[in-house]
């Protein structure tokens, strides 16, 4: 009887020891790890200006509702000839990002349809590191107030989605050389 009580006590103590110190410490660690930064809003909504469409091109369904979707991979010959895909060409084509059924939407890999004003989610599927930096305001231009409201730009405001490399600019004039100062 005494033996049993003893082992019971030991068992209880063991269980208590197992849980007591471990739980708070672990919980603390986890809380620290998963503590979301203020910038990373719970929802994936970021204040952005309207997407930079070519004038008159949106809504796409204006033309596309008449056209039966052709899902065959091909180079477009009749329309959109101005778009030259220079963005991992050969690995993707139009309908990998543009939704087949609803041309006014973009399509994620998961099949979720998103609007053009959320296109950063589409870009972020491959460019996760840039997406992460963009969310905290490190990649790209973020304007507004350093201590208040901030507004973002869509990836497409600086990078043409079909040809994303940032285009060279002409520089502003160099400073006057001291010998030219009068």
């Amino acid at each position, binding site marked *: 009887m005494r033996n049993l009580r003893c082992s019971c006590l030991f068992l209880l103590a063991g269980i208590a020891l197992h849980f007591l110190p471990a739980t708070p410490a672990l919980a603390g660690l986890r809380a620290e790890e998963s503590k979301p*930064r*203020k*910038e990373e809003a719970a929802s994936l909504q970021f204040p952005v200006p309207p997407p930079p469409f070519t004038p008159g091109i949106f809504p796409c369904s204006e033309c596309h509702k008449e056209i039966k979707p052709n899902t065959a991979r091909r180079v477009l010959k009749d329309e959109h000839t101005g778009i030259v895909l220079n963005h991992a060409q050969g690995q993707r084509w139009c309908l990998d990002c543009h939704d087949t059924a609803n041309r006014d939407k973009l399509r994620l890999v998961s099949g979720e349809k998103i609007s053009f004003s959320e296109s950063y989610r589409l870009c972020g599927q491959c460019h996760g590191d840039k997406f992460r*930096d963009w969310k*905290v*305001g*490190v*990649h*790209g*231009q*973020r*304007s*507004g*107030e*350093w*201590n*208040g409201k901030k507004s973002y*730009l869509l990836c497409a405001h*600086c990078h043409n989605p079909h040809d994303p490399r*940032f285009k*060279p*600019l*002409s*520089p*502003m*004039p*160099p*400073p*006057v*050389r001291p010998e030219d*100062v009068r």
Partner: protein
Amino acid sequence: MSDKEARDKRILRLSRRKALKGLAAGIGALALPAKDSPASVWEAFFQKNFRELGKEDLQKVLARLEKEYSAQFGKAVKVKATPPVEGVLFGYALDLSRCIGCRRCVYGCVRENNQSRDPQIHWIRVLQLNKEKGVYLEEAEHYYNPAKVPEPGRFYMPVQCHQCKNPPCTKVCPVQATWTEKDGIVVVDYNWCIGCRYCMAACPYGARHFNWKKAGLPAADLNTDTHYLGNRPRPVGVVEKCTFCIQRVREPSGRYTACVEVCPVGARKFGNLLDPDSEIRYIIENKRVFIFKEDLNTQPKFYYFYAT
């Protein structure tokens, strides 16, 4: 009384008369400019150092300057003296992997901070460097002017005031006309500066600039939102420098600095070093950061980093 004694007395009396005459003329000459020039000249002359000004004195000084500038430029000019905010220490980061050397920041800064257009004063200098050599200043070029930037094989490094925590420039000032504010901004009291340019010699970043001539600043280009320690029009013979756009960032709704706003590639980042959620802290904690001329122990609050 002998003849000699009488002569000596006369000579003495004459010389005293001369002295009195001279004194009267001198006082008259001193009083003359006060008659035509406004009283503000005297007020400016006897103005105390900014840090010794009481609340009422400061208001008087600001009002006087506003009046002066408004008359000079023909439009209403606001001169603020917004104090630093508690719990704020400004920091700046610049992404060397993004900067393309387009100099938009240089001219954005000139517009915002009322620098002289002619003779030209730029608070930001963009260095063009060789990718193979890295930050090798002997081959740095800041007069580059190709048709398009960036050029292959080059990278660009804008340099401006680093707002050091241990600033060599403020230590050498013989009249304490320059100092570090509570929020980390190194400022100049243009009314106290005597123009000795010791600070320019002391600064290892070439961030201080001297007003050799009257500022060539057209009234149409004047930014009328000014700060006493920042972008108010500067007189001849004083030193000026970047103030992290003190007139913008100290406001309750603190706008980003002009260079941050204008950068087309978003290479410039600004924020509060004491706020763990600010982008500047994210950069310092997560990116490869380097400090320019770190060996000089100036402890800048301006960091260069590589986002990629």
